[in-house]
């Protein structure tokens, strides 16, 4: 881990100095302040993120785009609370996530974050209904309430007639919609999608992107991490990442 302070990061000459750090914005859903992520590779320190700062207000539809190795996966893991920053502050829904321990992070993932993965990541042996119920189980919700909530979530992605099917009995698009239902079922603060169309054909991809658009229209905050420009173009704001720094942050709609 880097032992430098926020005021003087050990910026190699090739890397531009990070933007000045402001106080976190308490009105934002997400507020990232001077986020560094450093990995120890043998004797060498590798900086995946070089002091990244940005804000995401509630209800925004945002794409994070960048080539592989840009640090966007690291950023996604941090936003999703699967990991904590080496340095800097991450405020999610007015809570300082960067100082939380494993159990607190698990709780934040359970209550505040809905994940959608490229490879769906459904439990292979469980039915669609059970897959969607999974976050509610760890949220400690009783079974009858759980069934009802999961059924409702599956209905919202038009899968009412597939609730007893297992993932191997579903098409790719249907699997991804089960995953989206699972992400939504606990009413999270953010819907975080990592290459959500990466394993789908173009027609199904468009269906999923239409679904995201609709969910955004219903008030959900959506963050899509991708390297595909036409997917990013569906969002309302695009943050471009390169070499661990924000290269561009623009509203496109």
């Amino acid at each position, binding site marked *: 881990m880097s032992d430098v302070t926020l005021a003087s990061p050990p910026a190699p000459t090739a890397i531009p100095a990070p933007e000045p750090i402001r106080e976190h914005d308490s009105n934002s859903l997400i507020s990232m302040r001077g986020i560094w992520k450093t990995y120890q590779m043998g004797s060498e320190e590798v900086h995946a993120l070089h002091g990244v700062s940005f804000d995401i207000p509630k*209800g925004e539809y945002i794409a994070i785009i960048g080539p592989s190795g840009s640090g966007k996966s690291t950023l996604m893991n941090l936003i999703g609370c*699967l990991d904590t920053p080496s340095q800097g502050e991450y405020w999610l829904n007015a809570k300082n996530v960067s100082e939380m321990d494993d159990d607190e992070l698990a709780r934040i993932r359970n209550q505040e974050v809905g994940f959608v993965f490229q490879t769906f990541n459904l439990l292979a042996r469980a039915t669609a209904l059970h897959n969607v119920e999974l*976050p509610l*189980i760890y*949220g400690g919700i009783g079974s009858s309430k759980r069934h009802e909530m999961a059924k409702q979530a599956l209905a919202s992605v038009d899968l009412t007639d597939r609730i007893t099917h297992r993932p191997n009995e579903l098409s790719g698009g249907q699997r991804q919609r089960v995953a989206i239902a699972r992400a939504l079922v606990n009413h999270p603060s953010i819907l975080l999608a990592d290459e959500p169309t990466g394993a789908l054909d173009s027609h199904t991809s468009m269906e999923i992107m239409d679904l995201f658009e609709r969910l955004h229209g*219903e008030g959900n905050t959506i963050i899509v991490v991708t390297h595909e420009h036409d997917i990013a173009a569906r969002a309302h704001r695009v943050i471009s990442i390169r070499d661990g720094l924000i290269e561009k942050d623009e509203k496109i709609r």
Partner: protein
Amino acid sequence: MTPDETNRTSYARGPRAGNSSGLDSSGFTALKAKRRFSLLRLTALWEAFLVAIGSLRTNKLRTALTLMGIVVGVSAVISVVTIIKGLDQTVAQTFSSQGSTVFTISKQPRVITSREDFIKFSKRKDVTRDDAEVIFRMCSSCYQTGIAASRPEIVKHLDQKSDNVFIRGIAPTTMFDIDAVTIDAGRIWNDNEGESAREICVVGADISENLFQGAAPDRIIGQQIHVAGRPFLIIGVLQPLGKIFGFSRDNLVYIPYSTYQKIFGGRSSLVVFVKTRSAAELEETQDQVRTIMRNRRIRSVSDSDDGFALETQDVFLDLYSKATSNIYLVTIGVAAISLVVGGIVVMNIMLVSVTERTKEIGIRKAVGARQKDILTQFLIEALTVTALGGAIGVLTGFGLAYVLALLMGFPLLISAASAVLGVGVSSIVGVVSGLWPAWRASRLDPIEALRTE
């Protein structure tokens, strides 16, 4: 696909969407937290149990192998313990058939453990009929008294012959009560017949079996047998006592002591039997008899050797438990090793299971499972398998013990305690051997775990 507007509305970000006030959001969280505390434990445990059952059912062969490991271990321990208990009870019942109210006075103890003792005891004076007479007369707390002498002899009937029949000369007939034998057919001799040294006898059930082709007891009354070449008239048959360790306790012939003395001589030492009214009086009566006998042997108070042996039936039980307790421990220990092997099998399979399900663990962690939840899930899985294996093992063990008890001829003692112990111990084995794999699973990094295929 027809969009269902009514269902969808529930996913519109109703009050939270436009409202950015922190108050609303934290109130919502507090409510959720409350619900979490009350339900999470039970819900997660039940979920963990269901996941365990599902995973065990999906991998049937793996489950069967794990179960087998535990079943073998538990059934080995259970059957060994059950058999030992049956054996112990048989021995205890046999040796204490005269009850805890009987003790004996004899020249030598029945169990001699060293050559020096044997020589010392051989030099003692014989216990004689005179000794017995004095005890009969002087012991006020004695309830019943009698004398007996025994030896093995050949017994014949016509051309039928039986070796090593236990010939027991007794007087008076209260010795039948002291020996706790009862008449099945015929009668016992009266005092007159006893004192006049008549050649009459009361026989054990094996005599009719071996010498009269298994004739009914009442059919051999009045028949003649030859004991040591002399003819004896059978006047009574005893109820069978059964076997111990394959040795019959019914291969005996009771004759009056005076007759015994007439045939085999009165030189050999005899045994005096004393029965008290109740077990509570045993010690007091023993002291009285010991004092009487020490006076007759002219022993001073300070002399440590009595010059005779005063024993209860417990000496056999003591010897038996001394001789067998170590053997039992070793046997149970060997059986327990198979339980340890079973535990290792469970641990091995759990480790494979964790590796195979790394992805699943990653998914569960991503949607909010804490380390504790994952740990619990894998522990419950190990526990379910081993408890089930334990239950099956207990049943198999009892079955095995039943068959062995039937073959070896002793009672089957099925105790709830050993069943509970079997399931309990195997569950402990499950927790112990599941702990390390479960801990490894719980510590997996969710990012790494999600990346595996």
